[in-house]
């Protein structure tokens, strides 16, 4: 009998390894033969550790399992799907999961991440098969037809990027996966690497074939040790199975991959800074143009895409660009793995078609706050994303609609705050974080962020608050239009949204006391 205990980093953080060990020990002492499969997470993190058992009627789940629950689980014959207070029934019927449109995360949590058989049994590898039959121009056409846009946040059409690199003539081209997922509130890249690594490999191989690149890098974070380990093992397995190396799948194409680890610099999530870092340099931003598509890694034409973008490609090739483009909203086609995080009751990954509203995501799907208090603000799109008040909860999840409300969807993270949040402190934190992580290349970011944090301290201390608030707005203007990259350029989003939507938090403490 098969028992699934997740081993993604979040499940381990809430005790999954101890649960797996307890199940193994209990099974042995009861002389019950069990096979423990360490799957990735389904992304329903509030239920982790979610132990699943395979039964004739499908997978049955037991949520928030602790080692202390294990003896009673065996008493209840959980291995046959027996009743127990922690039983959540058929996992694929849990509404949170059943309501999703899982194009990209279809296998997450379902399979053993390092079993190629499992991967293929659940549809893996079909994208590459189609890609090999279509050839480079056919692949680019399918990706263009899908309408896929860069999932790192910029939203640039992936197919056009690939076409540019395909047309560039060079002795060497590169595929680089930006898995430097540093945005707070995001974990989709981590989950792809830990739950379904072959999908990322497949997506990058397809990109290599499409543009004529033979070498790829996955640049990820030192904060993701488990993802690095799984990815590296998956690459070895893929190489052994002929999915990497020369004559891929018996074809004339060759492609190989390497994982590289960053060193704690948030700015390396910016694509040109990432390329510098990959070259072994300080992660300082490059001025654009030239674009990485023309002059990228080591000066060669380079496709640099986000992890989710590459991971979306196998589905697009397997099912056709149209199947992907058929869902969505406006110019945002396909699905987005929205990551519900922070102070939220049902935190996890929710992959759905674009167009769902922010309010539906936070309240209907996410269940409101974890603390049970009122929602005050939602930061959408990481530390450089705007704080949305509940009055903007009718905003459809879409690149353009978010932009119209001075926000961005970024990499798909939503961090919920309850009514105890101090938005002036959050605005100051945005400046502080920018100062901490600035690469130092351009002045608006390097100096602006430091001065911004200082100016917030003056406002809090009651030093000419109105004048200093005007100064912050002026500074944000300079940072937005004068910075080289999104770090300095987008820090104004959280700062100005906090100022605009929560002005009451920016009244200096002595004044606030007097008013009360």
């Amino acid at each position: 009998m098969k028992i699934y205990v997740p081993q993604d980093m979040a499940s381990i953080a809430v005790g999954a390894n101890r649960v797996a060990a307890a199940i193994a020990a209990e099974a042995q002492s009861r002389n019950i033969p069990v096979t423990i499969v360490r799957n990735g997470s389904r992304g329903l993190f509030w239920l982790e550790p979610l132990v699943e058992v395979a039964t004739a009627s499908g997978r049955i789940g037991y949520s928030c399992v602790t080692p202390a629950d294990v003896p009673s689980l065996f008493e209840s014959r959980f291995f046959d799907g027996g009743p127990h207070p922690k039983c959540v029934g058929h996992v694929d019927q849990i509404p949170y999961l059943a309501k999703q449109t899982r194009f990209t995360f279809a296998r997450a949590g379902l399979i053993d991440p390092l079993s190629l058989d499992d991967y293929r049994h659940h549809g893996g590898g079909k994208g590459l098969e189609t890609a090999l039959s279509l050839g480079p121009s056919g692949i680019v056409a399918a990706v263009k037809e899908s309408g896929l846009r860069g999932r790192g946040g910029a939203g640039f059409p992936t197919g056009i990027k690939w076409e540019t690199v395909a047309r560039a003539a060079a002795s060497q081209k590169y595929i680089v996966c930006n898995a430097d997922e540093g945005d707070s509130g995001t974990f989709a890249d981590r989950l792809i690497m830990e739950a379904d690594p072959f999908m990322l490999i497949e997506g990058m191989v397809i990109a290599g074939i499409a543009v004529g690149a033979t070498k790829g890098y996955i640049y990820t974070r030192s904060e993701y040790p488990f993802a690095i380990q799984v990815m590296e093992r998956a690459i070895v397995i893929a190489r052994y199975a002929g999915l990497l190396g020369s004559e891929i799948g018996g074809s004339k194409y060759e492609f190989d991959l390497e994982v590289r680890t960053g060193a704690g610099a948030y700015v390396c999530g910016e694509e040109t800074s990432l390329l510098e870092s990959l070259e072994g340099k300080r992660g300082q931003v490059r001025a654009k143009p030239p674009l990485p598509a023309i002059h990228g890694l080591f000066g060669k034409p380079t496709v640099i895409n986000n992890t989710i973008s590459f991971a979306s490609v196998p589905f697009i090739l397997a099912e056709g660009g149209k199947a992907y483009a058929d869902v969505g909203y406006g110019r945002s086609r396909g699905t987005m793995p929205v990551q519900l995080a922070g102070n939220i009751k049902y935190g996890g990954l929710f992959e759905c078609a674009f167009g769902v509203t922010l309010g539906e995501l936070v309240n209907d799907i996410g269940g409101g706050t974890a603390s049970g208090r009122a929602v005050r603000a939602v930061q959408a799109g990481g530390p450089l994303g705007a704080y949305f008040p509940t009055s903007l909860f009718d905003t459809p999840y879409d690149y353009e609609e978010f932009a119209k409300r001075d926000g961005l969807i970024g990499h798909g993270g939503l961090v919920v705050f309850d009514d105890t949040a101090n938005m002036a402190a959050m605005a100051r934190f945005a400046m502080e974080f920018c100062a901490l992580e600035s690469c130092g290349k351009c002045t608006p970011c390097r100096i602006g962020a430091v001065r911004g944090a200082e100016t917030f301290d003056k406002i809090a201390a009651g030093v000419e608050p109105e004048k200093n608030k005007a100064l912050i707005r002026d500074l944000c203007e300079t940072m937005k239009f004068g910075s080289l990259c999104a770090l300095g350029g987008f820090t104004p989003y959280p700062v100005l949204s906090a100022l605009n939507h929560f002005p009451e938090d920016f009244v200096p403490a002595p004044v606030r006391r007097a008013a009360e």
Partner: protein
Amino acid sequence: MSSETEGSVSQIVTKIAEDHQHLEGPLLPILHAIQEQFGFVPQDAEPVLAQALNLTRAEIHGVVSFYHDFRRAPAGRHILKICRAEACQSMGGEANARHLLDKLGLNWGETTPDGRITVEAIYCLGLCATAPSALLDGEPVGRLDAGTLESLAMDAA
């Protein structure tokens, strides 16, 4: 540092550099390997690397000092990295961390006088739906409160 250990730093660093020579842009993997070996990146490693990679000492120093991960001195026996990013803040992570730092009498990045534990800030572990979280000697821990964070730090012998 004695001449004997200097010699061994130089030898070990040279060996690490050689082991990574086949890579394109090998400096970051080399620095990670050096930190893995010594627990920090010794000052003495910089001229050795400059020589091995045909770069200037300034270039090596510039890279080592750019990245938050690379330490210039040994840390405590245990390293506790506490997430200070927004998702953990939304779940009270800052107050938990403040409580612990006060208890230990430390500021961010400092080590207890007995060398037992170093407490560092980290910005996002990707455990944002099981916040607040931390990493103790590489082991992730989520759903922390002030009490569990404190015992995590105190129980590390």
